[in-house]
């Protein structure tokens, strides 16, 4: 059975160009970049090249890029550095729809005596800007706002927000894990001080990410015990990963146009076709500015896990905001923060496309989805009632 992969916000296929670029670093060039001999030490050149490729994709300078193990570590490193460098400030601001890497981290800081404001969003997932600006104070050490939401794809106006926040002398961090490689990111045009990214979200390998640290930003390392990365992150460099991430960044830059146009059209086609054929369905955050590859569609009166497992029978891979898929019993905190009713939140499916998604795949999904929803609704004790109510 062919796999139809529309779960690219979870992870992506590693591009063959990236695999090719990495392979020599497992076999012939396995040295340690810290060694005195040129066999190992010579690798600093390769690392430097990769660092430049990463910097180029986001409009940064190479020395502003710190390699980490991925998005979660980048987030934790950024927040740790900001709070350690500003020990007098005890207030943090984020939104209610942050990724668990930030949400859970901040809940922990909250337990440790920090004051955390989780700013609400509207029904479309857009930040309540008035509440956001109201929450800032002299005590605020850092603002952390995701650039684009992983579940809905809703984009925060980070360029404007970061400039405003920076003007008030407050550090601005953004989790751009879902953004880099999907829409243009240019830190030279905004006020972002710290930015997290992860290679496996744009056809790079897993286990490698980066943190952008604007030049001049005070920094305290979280991982110590070595001089690597200029003493900002100890540990032997993951050379194959770093090289792979560099190559993936270069490729992502080349493919941004395709994602912004062709992939966007495919996403729109998928969305419109499903909304048209499946009654009582809607797009979560559909009125907001969104990533071109993501759509979160709520199918009312059915449960997400059941939908996913039926899709799985056709080889279609996607995700759900349903409670049952996560092992928790509450549906996605993102959809709940947006006020999506339970009837819809439990049955929300996220389709996330990529540069490799084809028209045929989208057509296949459009063909298979309606009968799946219809079948599950025919089993649901609520459906008939709801359908009848809608007719009156």
């Amino acid at each position, binding site marked *: 059975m062919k796999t139809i992969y529309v779960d690219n916000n979870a992870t992506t296929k590693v591009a063959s160009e990236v695999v090719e670029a990495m392979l020599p670093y497992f076999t012939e060039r396995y040295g340690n970049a810290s060694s005195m001999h040129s066999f190992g030490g010579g690798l600093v050149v390769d690392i430097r090249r990769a660092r430049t490729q990463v910097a180029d994709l986001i409009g940064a300078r190479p020395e502003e890029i710190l390699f980490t193990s991925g998005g979660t570590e980048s987030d934790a490193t950024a927040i740790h550095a900001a709070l350690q460098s500003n020990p007098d400030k005890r207030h943090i601001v984020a939104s209610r729809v942050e990724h668990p890497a930030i949400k859970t981290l901040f809940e922990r800081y909250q337990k440790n005596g920090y004051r955390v404001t989780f700013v609400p969003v509207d029904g479309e997932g857009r930040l309540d800007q008035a509440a956001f600006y109201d929450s800032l104070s002299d005590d605020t050490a850092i603002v952390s706002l995701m650039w684009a939401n992983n579940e809905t794809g809703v984009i925060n106006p980070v360029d404007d927000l970061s400039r405003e926040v920076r003007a008030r002398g407050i550090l601005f961090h953004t989790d751009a894990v879902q953004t880099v490689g999907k829409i243009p990111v240019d830190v030279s045009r905004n006020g972002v001080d710290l930015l997290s990214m992860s290679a496996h979200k744009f056809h790079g390998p897993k286990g490698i990410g980066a943190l952008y640290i604007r030049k001049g930003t005070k920094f305290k390392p979280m991982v110590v015990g070595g001089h690597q990365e200029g003493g900002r992150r100890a540990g032997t460099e993951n050379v194959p990963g770093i090289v792979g991430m560099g190559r993936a960044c270069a490729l992502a830059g080349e493919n941004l146009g395709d994602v912004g146009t062709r992939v966007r059209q495919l996403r729109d086609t998928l969305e419109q076709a499903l909304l048209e054929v499946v009654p009582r369905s809607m797009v979560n955050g559909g009125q907001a500015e969104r990533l071109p590859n993501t759509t979160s569609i709520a199918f009312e009166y059915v*449960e997400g896990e*059941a939908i996913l497992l039926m899709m799985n*029978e056709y080889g279609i891979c996607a995700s759900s905001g349903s409670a049952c898929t996560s*092992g928790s*019993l*509450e549906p996605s905190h993102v959809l709940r923060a947006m006020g999506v009713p339970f009837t819809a939140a439990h049955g929300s499916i996220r389709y996330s496309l990529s540069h490799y998604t084809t028209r045929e795949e989208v057509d296949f999904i459009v063909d298979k989805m309606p009968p799946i929803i219809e079948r599950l609704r*025919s089993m*649901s*004790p*609520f459906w008939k009632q709801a359908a009848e109510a809608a007719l009156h």
Partner: protein
Amino acid sequence: MWEYTDKVKEHFLNPRNVGVIEDADGVGEVGSLSCGDALTLYFKLDADGRITDAKFQTFGCASAIASSSALTEMMIGKTLEEAEKITNDDIASFLGELPKEKMHCSVMGHEALEKAIACYRGETVPKPEGNVICECFGITDRQIEATVRDHHLVAIDDVTGHLKAGGGCGKCHENIQAIIDQVQGKPMPIRSEAAPLTNLQKIRLIEETLEREIKPALHQDGGGIELVDVDGNRVMVKLRGTCAGCKASQVTLKETVEAKLRELVAKDLVVEEVRS
């Protein structure tokens, strides 16, 4: 991804007995949209009181649908008295196994069955006794206590898996842990010689220990125990069920009952069996 057994997957992809029985003899509705799962169960009886047909409608995940399907298969052909004995564990075993996070799906099936039978008899299922601990899912301390005891649960996650309790906002986790500790006997005071018990305290503590620690274990083997009297350090008990007349009962008495009472009440207790 959940590790579902082939049987769960099969019952999910090809559920048996989906639908409505318009002239059903019993109907049981449980769950709600906000909870994330709901089940309506119908059955029809023949003249001899045997279930000839059962149907269900379920909103929920794969294991909820599979549990409902399994339940209807198990019910059909049974008398009401036989069907009544189906437990949530039976539903889970029928399906091979359910992930522990999904045990509540089988519990939902069991509750629907209880309600459908009560509906037929014109009774209502009594509201669960006790005080609500988990406000998100309306689960009481008594329900949690009984589930922890019956299924030998040791962690909050297990309780959530069975009852959903604690699966929402999480505010009740401390209270759930306290119930687990209580059932597992952790906070039961181990008496020191320095603080001798009054007779009344001693009797109460013996009763509590029998109830919490000993009876559940004996029940598993179909046995039982009853406190007759306490005289000084002599604890007189009567054995019930399969324990009475069992050759191993003297061993049970000394090694289980006496040991536990000595551990949790007083070191000098001696347990004696009273025969009627």
